[in-house]
């Protein structure tokens, strides 16, 4: 019997619910933790980033307009589908991060649990941070959090799945839509997450995943007028390496178009332009901070009276 030919997988982008190749036609080599060739991934260009923002903007009305409860159900469904792909995730994470099979499985468990944790927050954040404010006048004064819009996310460079889930889930749980730059050197778990999202009930365009060189595409997203917030988690380099992303410049570009910015961990309150480190994503967040980082507070005054 003839030897069976391998059916190799083409890793593509995930934009607007579809899996396009890069508009530029480029790809780059992805290696495992030991530097051995694993696959060619699509290398997104600025135009792919632009298309992704368009897709995210188009999806925003539907996603933010869905009830919080419904968003929670949809996100929980994502966790179910991730569970079904557990083995595939574990294999990709083990290769990307150089973990043993057992440790990789534990990372995937944690990532699914993190997704469920954020799914639970969808219909609870408004109760936690919303308020009926006491005011000196005959008014009902109510504050409610609302999703900010389109969020550009630089996903963590080291933690290719748990870190990714920890930054993407809070954005979509709050009702925003996002364009995610996956870990530059460890992009493959993000591509699998894209396949999970495409086969769950998340509307196309709510999450858009781009693989490629972070320092190349990030400035276009930071300066994009139609991006409402920027998460710089992925500006922190891989442990022991020099930073390739100048997150201070990204923040400055974002400021020019009034884009909300979440600085990377370790950058300090004063915002010195280096020192970004990747936090330990296995630690459960102490509250929905990341959800609220991508929400705006709307306060309404309504006259009382009979």
């Amino acid at each position: 019997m003839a030897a069976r030919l391998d059916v190799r997988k083409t890793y593509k982008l995930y934009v607007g619910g579809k899996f396009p190749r890069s508009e530029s036609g480029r790809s780059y080599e992805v290696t495992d933790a030991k530097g051995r060739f694993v696959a060619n991934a699509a290398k997104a260009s600025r135009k792919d980033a632009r298309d992704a923002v368009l897709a995210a903007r188009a999806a925003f009305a539907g996603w933010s307009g869905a009830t919080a409860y419904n968003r929670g159900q949809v996100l929980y469904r994502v966790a179910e589908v991730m569970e079904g792909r557990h083995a595939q995730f574990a294999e990709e994470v083990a290769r990307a991060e150089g973990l043993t099979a057992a440790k990789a499985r534990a990372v995937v468990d944690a990532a699914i649990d993190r997704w469920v944790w954020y799914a639970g927050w969808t219909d609870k954040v408004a109760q936690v941070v919303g308020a009926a404010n006491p005011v000196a006048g005959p008014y009902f004064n109510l504050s409610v959090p609302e999703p900010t819009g389109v969020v550009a996310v630089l996903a963590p460079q080291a933690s290719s799945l748990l870190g990714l889930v920890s930054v993407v889930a809070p954005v979509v749980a709050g009702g925003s839509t996002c364009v995610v730059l996956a870990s530059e050197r460890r992009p493959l778990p993000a591509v699998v997450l894209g396949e999970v999202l495409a086969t769950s009930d998340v509307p196309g365009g709510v999450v858009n995943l781009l693989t490629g060189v972070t320092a190349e595409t990030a400035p276009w997203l930071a300066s994009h007028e139609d991006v409402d917030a920027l998460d710089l988690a992925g500006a922190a380099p891989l442990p022991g390496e020099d930073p390739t992303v100048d997150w201070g410049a990204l923040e400055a570009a974002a400021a020019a178009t009034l884009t909300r910015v979440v600085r990377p961990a370790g950058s300090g309150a004063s915002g010195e332009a280096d020192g970004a480190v990747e936090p330990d994503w296995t630690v459960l967040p102490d509250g929905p901070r990341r959800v609220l980082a991508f929400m705006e507070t709307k306060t309404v005054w309504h006259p009382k009276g009979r």
Partner: protein
Amino acid sequence: MTATTPALTDRVRDVLGSTTLDDASLRRWLHGLPGVDEVGAHGRAAMLGTRSIKTTSKAWALDLAVSMVDLTTLEGADSFGTVRSLCAKARVPDADDPACPKVAAVCVYNDLVPVAVEALAGSGVKVAAVTTAFPSGRASLAVKLADTRDAVQAGADEIDMVIDRGAFLSGRYLKVFEEIVAVREVCDEAVALHGRRAHLKVILETGELSTYDNVRRASWLAMLAGGDFIKTSTGKVSPAATLPVTLVMLEAVRDWAALTGEIIGVKPAGGIRTAKDAIKHLVLVHETAGERWLDPDLFRFGASSLLNDLLLQRRRMRTGVYASPDRLTLAT
């Protein structure tokens, strides 16, 4: 059938090569036109669509495209307010950039022409009205002429008429021809009223003509009858303007100019939504009809959402960052 209907001028007789003007002679002439190579038309349109236009050429093309837009609103819900705001947008497309050109015209239903004429007075932006029982064209000739006369008297600079597709498809070419001639005569009445004639655009509604051969025939028939422009579609039927259809029509005006010396304009309308689409059309114009047609007097885009995308691209080229539609007026 008499040998000399009023429309059988020397000009028509020369082109037609016939001393009679009837369905049979028109049919002989139109069906004698060479057939359109459909695969070739698709291939050529696709090939020209891949051409990349960069930096200064792109900036020039975007400005030209803005100046070619017939900013259109043809909804049942149109009100005085929506037309006025559209006219304000036509005068000053991008309030952030005084260098941005004005659009060519505003296109409305005929009852809203007075509103548009008032709002655009002195701006140089033309007012186009759709008439002749737009979009179906299913009304008697008397009604169509009254419809047109109404718009002409109200001060429309341009009349967009629809042909009778039912008559065209069933081979009653003379009816189509005579209707265009009659509407054109009404357009000429504008000379007495406003000191200039109203330009006539003839909408072929290519989405209903089924074949490229028919598009070519309808184009020639409309030009023979005296249309100043041939326009692809009403925008109410899908498919509307596609690149191959525009290609066939551009070939028709090119060949017509070679035959008669008359320069006829082309207006693709409907379905052109992005700056990229618009630039593809401009490439097609340049490569098919020639540079002469890269002029708002001879080429127009019938569109509404196209303008905002053109403005976003202009803004992107000016500022270096991707622009947000939030910064523009009228989200269409």
